[in-house]
């Protein structure tokens, strides 16, 4: 059903960001902390409106954007991500002198980009959302103006990101050239029927894949991730590690659901994705072993998790893909907020040596961080275990046994660098005093919510799986 009412969730976020942008220039410096709470209000309103559209299956703007259950599910994922990022950045921005009011407006712009991306099946609209997301991200990465590394990460992300966008548009041009349409369904049908333009279609798909692979940091295109993640302010890094990934995999889900079902001769693309998944897992996990900076370790770990998500795409099991994304959201935000908890005025403790003895000095931070690391490594009874279990069992059912063997082996490797942080926290004498700024209730709220969700998803995942199945109904049936 086509209704302008369905645009309300997106409009709420856009109006919110414009409102914050205007408000920012009229507020004086002392009152800037209100901006965070106002942006949270807009997020809550948007969330409530979103949930009221559940099971209604609207579309708007002449069908170019859909508000089906799948979109709403990814809207909620994005809203949760942005909400948590805003909560953990409330104090951080003050402490690290990054308190420019544009932060909240920009992060809402990024959110609207993600919302456009996940709710469309049209390549141009997807690109529009992607650019909205990317341009906000480039600015956010350089948000600590006085820090050279922050500026470096912003310029790196901007240059490489624009190249990736160029590849993406080039690929879209190829796909449009052969099918005379920008709709995903029409493109796939043309790829299936047209025999004369097979090579051009393959090139187009490859280039589009490269563009998206860059945004979600898949292996041959992951080079930017560690540097950008290290240099960007930590809440922004949190956002980078989840937001673009969730949106990119939503697009993958919509595309490959059509692609796997309608194309017999998709062997080349299948093996391309297979190689990308394997490379992502191996490179992400092996490179993380040598890192001593926590943010770099988590950056490589997020690359590796992208590989596991690719396994779910290859296994054509979207329930496990979405479950993994949900669990990944909570455990990664938890881990990053533990990193943010260990900071004080103008100083963040990011080296592994800083973490020695933290477990006894700050028992709450240490315990919660350990839970998130166990979950990232995939230990029961946390959500990380179940997420990996669902993905790998789906892949085995699909007959991808060599792929699963490689994934499980890389998981084993990953246990080393996750547990090394815990060993530093509990089994080493402190090298030097680490005095952190403790009065940060919003951050601890986020950490406790995340730890609750990590256990809830690990022990009792039933309700979320029901929601995911309802969301997947809105995919086209073949």
């Amino acid at each position, binding site marked *: 059903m086509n209704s302008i009412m369905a645009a309300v969730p997106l409009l709420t976020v856009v109006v919110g960001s*414009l409102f914050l942008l205007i408000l920012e*220039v009229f507020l004086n410096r002392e009152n800037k902390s209100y901006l965070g709470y106002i942006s949270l209000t807009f997020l809550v309103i948007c969330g409530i409106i979103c949930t009221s559209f559940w099971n209604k299956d609207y579309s708007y703007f002449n069908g170019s954007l859909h508000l089906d259950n799948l979109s709403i599910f990814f809207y909620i994922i994005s809203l949760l991500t942005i909400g948590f990022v805003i909560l953990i950045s409330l104090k951080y921005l003050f402490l690290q002198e990054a308190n420019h009011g544009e932060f909240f407006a920009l992060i809402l712009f990024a959110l609207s980009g993600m919302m456009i991306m996940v709710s469309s099946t049209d390549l141009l609209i997807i690109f529009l959302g992607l650019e909205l997301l990317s341009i906000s991200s480039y600015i956010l990465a350089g948000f600590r103006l006085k820090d050279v590394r922050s500026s470096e990460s912003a310029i790196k992300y901007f240059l490489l990101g624009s190249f990736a966008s160029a590849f993406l548009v080039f690929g879209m041009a190829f796909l449009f050239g052969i099918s005379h349409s920008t709709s995903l369904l029409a493109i796939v049908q043309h790829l299936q029927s047209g025999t004369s333009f097979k090579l051009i279609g393959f090139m187009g798909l490859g280039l589009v894949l490269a563009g998206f692979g860059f945004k979600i940091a898949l292996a041959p295109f992951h080079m930017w991730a560690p540097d950008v993640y290290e240099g960007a302010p930590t809440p922004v890094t949190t956002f980078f590690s989840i937001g673009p990934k969730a949106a990119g995999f939503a697009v993958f889900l919509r595309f490959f659901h059509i692609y796997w079902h309608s194309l017999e001769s998709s062997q080349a693309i299948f093996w391309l994705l297979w190689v990308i998944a394997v490379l992502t897992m191996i490179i992400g996990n092996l490179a993380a072993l040598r890192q001593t900076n926590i943010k770099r370790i988590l950056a490589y770990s997020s690359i590796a998790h992208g590989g596991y998500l690719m396994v779910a795409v290859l296994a054509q099991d979207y329930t496990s893909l979405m479950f993994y994304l949900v669990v990944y959201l909570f455990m990664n935000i938890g881990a990053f907020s533990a990193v943010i908890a260990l900071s004080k005025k103008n100083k963040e403790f990011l080296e592994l040596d800083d973490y020695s003895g933290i477990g006894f000095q700050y028992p709450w931070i240490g315990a919660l961080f350990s839970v998130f690391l166990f979950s990232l490594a995939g230990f029961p009874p946390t959500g990380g275990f179940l997420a990996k279990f669902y993905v790998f069992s789906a892949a085995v059912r699909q007959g991808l046994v060599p792929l699963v063997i490689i994934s499980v082996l890389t998981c084993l490797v990953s246990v080393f660098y996750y547990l090394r942080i815990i060993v530093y926290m509990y089994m080493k004498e402190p090298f030097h005093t680490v005095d952190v700024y403790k009065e940060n209730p919003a951050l601890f709220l986020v950490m406790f919510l995340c730890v609750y969700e990590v256990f809830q998803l690990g022990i009792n995942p039933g309700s979320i799986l029901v929601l995911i199945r309802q969301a997947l109904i809105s995919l086209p049936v073949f």
Partner: protein
Amino acid sequence: MIELFLVFLIFGSLGILLILMNKILGPRKTNPKKEKPFECGSPYLQDKVNTLPIKYYLVAVLFLLFDIEVVFFFPWAMIFREMQPKAFIIMFFYIVILLVGFVYAWKKGAFEWER
């Protein structure tokens, strides 16, 4: 068509080859004097170029921004007659968004030259 392509290929590659030949085959004798920037034969006076403020870039960026935004008025004017009331509402929202950007730039002091 293919002949034209070949002509471009041959002469293009020939040009690149000739430039590279110079690099590869030519003798390379350097000394510190030779590496210095050329300043009409007289000795070099200062180490680096003085920094100068570039204020104009902000104006250029803003000009580009609003100029490109105005481009969207042309397709609007083309279909204006067919969808009269709807077109006004759409353009109203568009201009509101433009105004937000304008007010933001103004209040941030982007139009003030001396600051």
